[in-house]
């Protein structure tokens, strides 16, 4: 049975990923960033092994390129990153001090001189605030997914490799933490420790590493019986070396696919925390937090406080999910079914 992953059970969207063999067109030109996306993984094998994956990398990139939606998604994410990081360089706005004249957004609706998307009920320029909040959403999403993946991979590989009582103990701990509804745990954590961007990255990673731990443990259980692992053992290779050099690089497909889905999940988790008021402390904000007064804003007819940000979240999350799906197909990974 596939594990219910992350916040909403991510793998549901790739379960039927097998059935369709991907026809690889011979005359496809593969853009560099696609290859990078398929190869340049945060936990990928060390540089020394890249020459052996060169041909494979191109194949993977081609398979990825077959998924038009995923390629579009990649473009969406690149555009979104440009919007959030490069945008503010050209579009200067005040995002720390409130402009009290603008606290009533009807004073400057979209199209008003100097405010293309209007202003928020807190007296900020909406378009500028979307860039400002997007930076936090994307940073926390990407970094917490990275941290969660690293922790989960190491934990799962150690548990799976050493097996026996250590495995039983480590996995029982995973079961226990996974049974706590994630938002309750997160709210408890951010209440006990004062919320900040770094803390949010850590606590979101802290509740998200459990699923990759299970996935990688499953992979490890099958990988450790392979001949090449036995061979390394026979030659006297130690556990740490086998895990680091042989098991994790071979589980990299599962890991990359998980990490991609986790970015989407992390962004949603941060948005939920921000919406509830437990996100980054003011004057910083994130996309979820920007929606927190959406009901009253919408009731007042201030649609620009609601739709643009909401659509940003949905777009980015869908994009990461599509890319995860395409990577799964490209890497021919089947989710661990147990």
């Amino acid at each position: 049975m596939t594990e219910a992953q992350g916040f909403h059970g991510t793998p549901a969207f790739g379960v039927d990923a097998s059935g369709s063999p991907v026809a690889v067109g011979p005359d496809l030109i593969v853009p560099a960033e696609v290859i990078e996306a398929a190869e340049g993984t945060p936990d990928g094998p060390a540089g020394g092994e890249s020459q052996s994956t060169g041909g494979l990398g191109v194949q993977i990139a081609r398979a990825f390129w077959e998924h038009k939606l995923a390629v579009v998604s990649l473009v969406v994410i690149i555009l979104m990153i440009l919007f959030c990081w490069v945008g503010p360089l050209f579009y200067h706005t005040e995002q720390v001090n409130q402009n009290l004249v603008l606290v009533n957004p009807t004073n400057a609706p979209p199209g008003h001189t100097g405010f293309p998307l209007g202003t928020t009920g807190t007296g900020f320029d909406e378009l500028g605030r979307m860039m400002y909040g997007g930076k936090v959403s994307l940073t926390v999403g990407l970094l917490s997914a990275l941290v969660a993946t690293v922790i989960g991979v190491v934990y799962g590989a150690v548990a799976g490799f050493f097996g026996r009582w250590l495995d039983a103990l480590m996995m029982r701990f995973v079961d226990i933490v996974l049974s706590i509804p994630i938002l309750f745990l997160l709210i408890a954590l951010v209440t006990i420790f004062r919320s900040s961007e770094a803390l949010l990255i850590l606590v979101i990673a802290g509740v998200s590493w459990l699923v990759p731990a299970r996935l990688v443990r499953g992979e490890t259980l099958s990988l450790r019986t392979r001949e090449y692992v036995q061979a390394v053992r026979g030659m006297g290779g130690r556990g740490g070396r086998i895990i680091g050099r042989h098991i994790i690089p071979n589980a990299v497909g599962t890991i990359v696919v998980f990490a991609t889905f986790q970015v989407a999940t992390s962004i949603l988790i941060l948005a939920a925390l921000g919406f509830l008021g437990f996100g980054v402390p003011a004057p910083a904000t994130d996309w979820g937090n920007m929606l927190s007064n959406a009901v009253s804003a919408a009731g007042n007819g201030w649609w620009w406080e609601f739709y643009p940000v909401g659509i940003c979240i949905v777009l980015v999350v869908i994009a990461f999910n599509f890319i995860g799906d395409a990577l799964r197909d490209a890497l021919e990974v089947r989710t661990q079914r147990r």
Partner: protein
Amino acid sequence: MTGYLVRRILQAFVVILGVVLIVFLLSRLIPGGEARAVLGERASPTAIARFNRVQGFDSPIWVQFWHYVIGLPQLKLGYSYKFTQPVWVIISTRLPKTLALVGTSTVLALAIAVPLGVIQVIRRHKPVDYALTGLSFILFAMPAFFFGTLLIIIFAFDLKVLPVSPPSGASPFAIWTDPKAFIMPVVTLAAISIAVFSRYMRSSLLDAMAEDYIRTARAKGASSGRVLFGHALRNALIPIVTLLGLSLPLIVSGAVITEDVFNYPGMGLLVVVAAENTDIPLVLGTTLVITVATVVGSLLADIVYVAVDPRIRYGGSF
């Protein structure tokens, strides 16, 4: 089967004990201790020492844990200093409301998702299949607060057919006796489950259709309807029961947001209010109780699983 059930119940018990330990340790991680949280930042050291002595916080941590554990069967979950009431007294009125909300929307999600999955399999690789796939992707990516607010804008503000939020004083049963006020919260919470369950249903049914027994049934001349509903669907439903058990923690998390959007006074809204007031005993008590409820819910799903599928035998470490 009895052996399986006993082991499964024991396992749930171990999980609950582990959660108790985690919650207890979290309560001891508060910077400055509970005394600082209750008495304020400027409390004098003597006041803090006195508080710790009276509350038993100066005894060794395992003694404190022991007192905490033996207090649990008597529902001693601590004291909410902000609401000046025992934590359990506050929770006991909130828990039934969340159970009613989560239960109703999960049943609704299943009732919608299973037929959706079946339709997608019957019409696979046709426009209907793609449209429903696209819809589930969008529902899945949409944060519950965005979806819920969207419903409020459309049905409460624009069409004015539904109230913005259900009455806060209503009994937990009002969700069934006066459904109109609860339609939006229930649908909001069900949306993501519908997306996830229908995707699983689709793939699980497609897997089942590829099995040998389907070919056998076809060879024996069973009609395609009988093959689909009599053979494939019954087998494809089995993994959904497990998925249900596994999804419960996620659905309960979703309830926090749904309750916040619609001001529905359940456990989710309680934990938010408690956290806003840094009422840590209440936050942790809520977390513990909702987790126990979730574990029991998953256990029930697993018991149903065994009842549905007599082939299941408990084996291995999972």
